[in-house]
């Protein structure tokens, strides 16, 4: 927000997009109320949240994690806040209840 938007004279006619791939710049997750919070200790790395997310907003990271019970995982899961719309499907489907939907902190 805060960036200058193009005037009608500067925009290509007919809404044509002349810079392919610019949908990456369109952050679709700015209206969520709740955001998933993943408990890395409870999570069993089953990947179900990653599958069910309709916005590809669950990121599977090559980031090692050792749980508080000493189990070592090669991967971790994280949420892409730019694209998560806060639907809660990940939390609903998580078999070990490792995901909690928490209110988004508004600045």
């Amino acid at each position, binding site marked *: 927000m805060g960036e200058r*938007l193009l*005037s*009608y004279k500067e*925009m*290509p*006619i*007919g*809404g*044509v997009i002349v810079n392919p791939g610019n949908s990456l710049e369109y952050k679709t997750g700015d209206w969520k109320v709740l955001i998933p919070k993943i408990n890395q200790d409870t999570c069993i790395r089953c990947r179900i949240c990653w599958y069910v997310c309709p916005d590809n907003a669950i990121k599977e990271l090559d980031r090692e994690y050792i749980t508080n019970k000493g189990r070592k995982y090669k991967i971790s899961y994280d949420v892409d806040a730019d694209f998560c719309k806060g639907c809660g499907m990940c939390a609903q489907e998580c078999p070990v209840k490792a995901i909690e939907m928490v209110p988004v902190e508004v600045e």
Partner: protein
Amino acid sequence: MQAIESKRARPLNTNHAIANAVKDLDVDVISAYPITPQTTVVEKISEFVAKGELEAEFIHVESEHSALSAAISSSVTGARTFTATASQGLALMHEILHIASGLRAPLVMSVAMRSLSAPISIWNDQGDLFNARDAGWIILFAHTAQEAYDSVIQAYKFVEDERVLLPAIIAYDGYLMSHTIEPVVTEGREKVIKFAPKRHYPYRLDPQKPVTIGPIAPPEYYYEIKYQQVKAINGSLPIIEEVDKDFEKEFGRGYGIMECYMCEGANSLIMTNASYAASLKAFLPEFREQGLKVGLLRLRLYRPFPLKKFVEYTSDIKNLLVVDRAISYGAPYQGPLANEVAGAKVKEGLGFNIISVVAGIGQRRMDREDFYALARMAHEGGRHEETVFYGVRE
């Protein structure tokens, strides 16, 4: 009537005149669905394609909705594209009409104007066209088969102009023109292409320069894209005028954007279009001899509305009788054109008296004596608070 060089003229109805224009313009893609009274336009074009006289892709679609959808797609790939329709077909295209203008597709469509259902009527009025007036298309009315042929050629020249890039409709009366034979001079491909060489949509699909056509526009962008259309259609007026002048230089036939016929010495004007304008041109000399000081204000360019010309022609007249062949149900005047004229009158501070007349609905017959009655009404003036539904049985 425009003088026709008799030895070059051919007997054509307006539908066939338009088909010949499409052939002479070397149109690349035709996507159309037949509907009465437009059918013989696409029949003739399909014959030209089958005989190899026009090397084009003729797409047989299953509806007018598809006809215009395919035409838009073809147009934005850079192909010169044509379609034609009427009545229910134009109504079925309605959502796609807005997409064509929103995507700035430079295509041309002819409309053989016909009434809308219900009740079913295959006959002429202009309910279909006036239903489509706010879809962002350039709209021209032709009043002779020759003018229809010439207007299709002019239309490609201005719609493909980078300063315009909007779709255009060439409208004419179903049956009264579509199936009426008149002398028409056709110019042949060489001369026509020299006048209107193909100029392609600037963002046409090109693998080297990929673009996205038809994306969603969020509230931060939609408004500006619609405002571009406002600027484009208003800005197209001088270009349409310029093309008409160039056409006259090249072919000896020019029409202007609005015509005032026998306006000298007239204190009242009848504003009408298409075949009614042609009928009045035939009758007016006689009416004038009989003492009716009436002229004809012929609407040729309808969108964008030629307001400056309108002011020029109406600033000194007493009465303006506006003939509408469409009904705007429940509106202040029930003639759509009369409402616009009332708006223009207020906007420009004009002093004439408006007489709103609805006539010819469902092709209710209008003979010489009916035009005389209208001319008399215009001549006599007087305040007509309500729209006059001429000829309806009460």
